[in-house]
């Protein structure tokens, strides 16, 4: 099974296999013998190649939270198919945080320029204006004032560039 792990800005294509000696993670930098031993209460002993460390690990859906050596890391596991499918979009404005839509400043069909205000959102103490990521014509508005929207919710979509 192949997966793409997003770690910050970088993407790592990985797959896992089992041989007689245990698990091998094939990464873009070559194979990595690895093991994960549960120590109870979210603690694990993780080893990869020559490295070994104790870590706290929590998973939620496709997000893996790892506390390792005094730092917190969030890894997003992406199915290659989802990644490929996601490439097909023609740009959209997404909610940068979960919260409430305060106002919608555009209508479908409107021509907007990059940076133009589209939607105003609020999430406790913070008002955020979502701006057009690029020039284009609005295809659809997927939210209305008062809507509660989750993180990365597609607020506004654009028509495909000619």
């Amino acid at each position, binding site marked *: *099974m192949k*997966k793409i*792990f997003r*770690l*910050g800005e970088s993407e*790592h294509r*990985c*797959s*896992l*296999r*089992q*041989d*007689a000696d245990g*698990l091998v*993670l*094939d*990464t873009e930098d070559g*194979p*990595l013998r*690895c*093991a*994960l031993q549960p120590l109870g209460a*979210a603690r*694990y002993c*993780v*080893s*990869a*190649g020559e*490295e070994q*460390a104790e870590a*706290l*690990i*929590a*998973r*939620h859906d496709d997000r*893996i*939270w*790892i*506390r*390792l*050596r*005094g*730092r*917190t*890391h*969030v*890894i997003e*596991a992406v199915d290659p198919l989802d990644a490929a499918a996601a490439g097909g979009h023609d740009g959209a404005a997404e909610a*940068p*945080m*979960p*919260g409430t839509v*305060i106002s919608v400043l555009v209508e479908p069909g409107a021509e907007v320029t990059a940076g133009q205000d589209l939607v105003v959102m*609020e*999430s*406790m*103490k*913070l*008002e955020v204006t979502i701006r057009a990521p690029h020039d284009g014509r609005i295809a659809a508005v997927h939210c209305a004032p008062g809507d509660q929207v989750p*993180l990365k919710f597609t607020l506004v979509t654009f028509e495909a560039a000619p």
Partner: protein
Amino acid sequence: MTGAPIRRLLVANRGEIAARILRTAKAQGIECAIVRHAAEDGGLAPQLADAVVPIEGATPVAAYLDVAQIVQAARRWGADAVHPGYGFLSESPALARALDEAGIRFVGPPPAVTELMGDKVSARRFVAEHGFPVAPSAIEADDPGSFTQRALAVGLPILIKPAAGGGGKGMRIVRSAEVLDAELAAARREGERYFGDGRLFVERYVERPRHIEVQVLGDQHGSVVHFGERECSVQRRFQKIIEETPSPALDAGTRARICEVAVGIARAAGYVGAGTVELILGADGEFYFLEMNTRLQVEHPVTECVTGFDLVAEQLRVAAGEPLGYSQADIGFQGHAIELRLCAEDPAQGFMPATGSLQVLREPAGPGVRVDSGVVEGQRVGSDFDSLLAKLIFHGRSRGQALARARQALADTACLGVATNLDYLDRILAHAQFAAGDYSTAFLDEQAAELGDAGETHSTALLLAAAALSDGHMVAAAADMPRLYAQMGAWRN
């Protein structure tokens, strides 16, 4: 007001501050209740309370802001006092009055003082009239027609504030005249939404200012003392994330003057209870009155660490009508304390509030470590409330010791399942400027690049291994292959 002791206390708040208040009150033998909206995951506080009184509202926040409901909850449960914590209705004269009418004590100052200090404009005027320093300003209500002109006359840069504001909401810095109108409009919108009041005022924005505040306490018998200052200049979006006391910026003389000014303002206002006078300190050592918070402050624990006083206990004593029973000279200061606010927010995404669930929570412990937490492992973190999860407070004989304890404690802390500023806090502590105590409210913006995580090296191999091997599907799929293929590896003929 009666002088009878408080026996049944309703905490009209949630999160870490509710837990904090409950701990002190219960230790004094007071029976405690807490309010809770059905839709929220209350975390720690409801577990500590003797009773939970449900409150209702379209949103949880609306319920906490509903004066009538809070009063009814107090009455229904038979409370003889209500502690409002901070935020919500803590600075609401309406709540204080309604409780008074119901014969229930409000743990806070009298409504007249709250009213005076709650309106920025009247507070500034009051402070200036009594001869205390305020920054040059322009007040919209004085003459709305000439407001823009007068705002510019204050001299750029200026800071726009809602007249009824607080907590950093609706504040905007304006550095060029062209954007003034747009920013005024935005600030007005926010003021209307958050405070139901669109009136604004502007004041001179002090570049690279330090934010200093003084903890004051007054009793019902006319005594007012201070508990020293707190340095709160480490801020993002006008909201504090690190506070410490004493301030590294003050020499003994300035400290004395500032504290004297704060006590003077509180005394002039007839202040009763715990309050905080906030001031702006310029690079030149000059300071101006900023505002007075008529409530317990989020960062009060650092003051408790260095003075040994329990400020909540003092609040309850004052509310019960007891005299302070000590003078300014009885308040000593021991060592240095630093507070870090652990928030559910993503520093890499402009400190956007984050949601999730606290799947793993490890709080630090050790000598000089205090954790004021309101959350428990497994708790859901939504976007309904403030992003503050817990406060990590560190006390040491010196600033260096407190800082060292803080860094060690952060390494022992973990919070997985929701984005937090934990690592960001550690990078601030590690920053040379912070270590030297040389920072202003602009610090986080100026050092944004250095405080990002780009420069940090990660153990990528270990992280990928952890990610892959904790993925049940991947592990199952790895095993679900004729073994020989895995053993052969990437052989090609």
